[in-house]
């Protein structure tokens, strides 16, 4: 790099970070925090503002529920953000995989292993729950494999066709779901072990005495576990290095002799499987499923991937938490505006940072 380019580079760097000019006072530190860690800044803002409008006990319950919802949405959204980031494939049929997972899980719970999920002991319940989640994962993954081969493969690199073909594929999948499981909604009773709530002991100030629903805690734990696992795979393993490199510059990875199509296929299948897992979790959360549930969740998923920045797992995680929280807070204050608030959050973030919170690829 020549000296001239270096000075130009420095200049543009300075222009991009005007808060550096403020010096080292608290205001400057706040501005730096806002610009460099926008996800944490927004999360803090999101959690603090409602605290003035809602009493602390309710706030704590809402926050936990919001985290639970965020965790489930994260499961569904993570696959789509990677697919988009890695191969530039916009898969609008992602919602259909969510529905598919929900129906597959529900089949195991309510038909095949009905006796186990009705029992009240945790261990017996687990005999039904784990296969249900596993089956949802497997079915969605397998169909994802077929879907990639049959529907998406011929239209790489053409966004318009991808949108058209995946919308068509989504119609076909949803119709097939209705062929197999019938057009009516299906009730999915939550297994007994997951019902009920923990009561926080009164000794703890502020949040003492509140009831935390078990299922929501489990959803949060599962979401964190998957997030942890994904971060580990992406950050620490060889496959992860290749995925990150592929998101950054696909051709360069190909030049080095790696078969990025195979890698992408793996990511797509994993993403579909995770969508299925999220769908199954959502089925047990809502306790009723319809074929079109995926379409409704798809909106949250889209908001999440735009919020987080394409291709970024971390951004996706924070985006999902933000969407979950705003849904619950606004849903409590004014239930009719929950969906509008979610979309409003997206529009606001786009105005502030068009790239999303933690962009990985250059848009």
């Amino acid at each position, binding site marked *: 790099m020549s000296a001239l380019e270096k000075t130009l580079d420095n200049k543009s760097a300075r222009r991009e970070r005007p808060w550096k000019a403020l010096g080292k006072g608290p205001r400057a530190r706040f501005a730096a925090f806002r610009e460099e860690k926008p996800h944490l800044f927004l999360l803090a803002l999101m959690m603090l503002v409602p605290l003035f409008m809602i009493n602390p006990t309710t706030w704590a319950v809402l926050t936990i529920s919001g985290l639970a919802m965020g965790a489930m949405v994260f499961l569904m959204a993570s696959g789509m953000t990677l697919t988009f980031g890695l191969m530039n494939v916009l898969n609008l049929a992602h919602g259909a995989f969510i529905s598919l997972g929900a129906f597959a899980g529900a089949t195991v719970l309510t038909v095949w292993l009905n006796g186990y999920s009705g029992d009240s002991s945790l261990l017996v319940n687990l005999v039904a729950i784990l296969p249900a989640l596993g089956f949802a994962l497997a079915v969605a993954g397998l169909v994802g494999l077929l879907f990639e081969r049959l*529907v998406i493969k011929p239209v790489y690199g053409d966004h318009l066709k991808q949108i058209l073909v995946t919308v068509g594929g989504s119609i076909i999948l949803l119709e097939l779901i209705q062929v197999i499981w019938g057009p009516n909604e299906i009730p999915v009773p939550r297994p007994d072990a997951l019902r009920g709530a923990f009561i926080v002991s009164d000794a703890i100030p502020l949040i003492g005495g509140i009831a935390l629903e078990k299922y929501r805690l489990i959803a949060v734990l599962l979401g964190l576990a998957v997030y942890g696992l994904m971060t580990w795979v992406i950050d620490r393993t060889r496959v992860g290095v290749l995925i990150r490199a592929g998101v950054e510059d696909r051709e360069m990875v190909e030049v080095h002799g790696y078969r990025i199509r195979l890698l992408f296929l793996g990511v797509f299948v994993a993403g579909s499987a995770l969508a299925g897992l999220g769908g199954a979790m959502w089925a047990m959360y809502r306790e009723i499923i319809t074929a079109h549930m995926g379409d409704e969740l798809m909106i949250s998923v889209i908001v999440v991937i735009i919020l987080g920045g394409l291709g970024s797992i971390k951004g996706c995680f924070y985006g999902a938490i933000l969407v979950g929280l705003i849904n619950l807070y606004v849903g409590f204050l004014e*239930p009719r505006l929950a969906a509008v608030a979610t979309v409003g959050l997206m529009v606001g973030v786009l105005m502030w940072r068009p790239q999303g919170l933690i962009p990985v690829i250059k848009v």
Partner: protein
Amino acid sequence: MLNAIFSGDTPRSRPLTAILLVILVCLALGPFLFDGTRAFSTLGMICVFIVVVASYDLMLGYTHIVSFAHTMFFGIGAYGMAIATDAMGNNFTAILVGLAGAIALSVVLSLLLGLLSLRVKAIFFALVTLAVAFAFLSLATQLYNITGGEDGLRVRVPRELGPAFRPFDGELRGFSIVTFLSGLFTEPGNLGEVLRESVFKVRFSGRELMYYVAFVVSLLVFLFLLRMVNSPFGRVLQAIRENEFRAQALGYRTVFYRTAAVIVSAVLATLAGVMFALINRYVNPENTLDFQLMVFILLMCVIGGMGTLYGSVVGVALFLLAQNYLQDLLRLFAAQVPEGGVMAELVAPDRWLLWFGVLFVLSVYFFPTGIVGQLRIWSQRRKPAA
């Protein structure tokens, strides 16, 4: 003369011209050629959706902007009309107020969407519009004291457009094509009887009047769009579609053109929504704002042929006929298949959309230019050195 009306963009294919002529005649003489309310409402919907899909094609086919908010603008028109007549009574002032209010709201919203999309990559526009349209749908469903929620609103049309109004005193007669054709096949020897049976009485009321208003509006909008896409403005849109960067380099402010296309298309969709409310006289979230309707619009546009306005006419006619009559056909199939199996489920009349979805995906792969594009390619091949 003819060239001037079509803005120099003629069908350029004999079969296509024939199909379009059939559609035109069927629509123009509709109430006199088809008996029964089902056929009548199908005809009305074809007129309305030609406007919807043709204006969608301006974005999708001519500029390659994928928007999922088209039903939102359609719904704004329909709800605007319903709310205005609800509040001001069934007179023509209410219609004017509803139309003006709905169009104003659409212009503002589409301008905002256009400006928002400037800040993000083109592909984001699809996602952003999808989310915004969903928020609008949920708002319309939730604010039931204004919109009637899931139950929707009845539209109180002026007496002149309702079934009680009789513009003519004399009795009119129509000739039912369906009866005639089926008679021709079943009892060809008895031609006189068949001819006599085919004649039916037409009760020309305000509803038929409204149908003709919609027909004329949709014809005018179609010709207007044809003029538009063949004007310098339309050429710039197509240049943006082919290579946005290059269009920019040539000195066109592509952002301005893209936003203008979005706004024009939104206004026309609103107009179609207004007509829909007046013809259907009942609006609810499902028949105006639903995501499924958006997918239908996309299907009609692509199957007919993106980037050819004639394609939207063909696509609309084909899709709405399929929607209304493919179920009957599948019922015939279903009668042949033994009950209870997976096969029976696959051809159940309710699953017509499955077959349309398969058709859609296959047509994107094998006929990416749609019916009209393919017809044009074939007739191009027939006369290579023309």
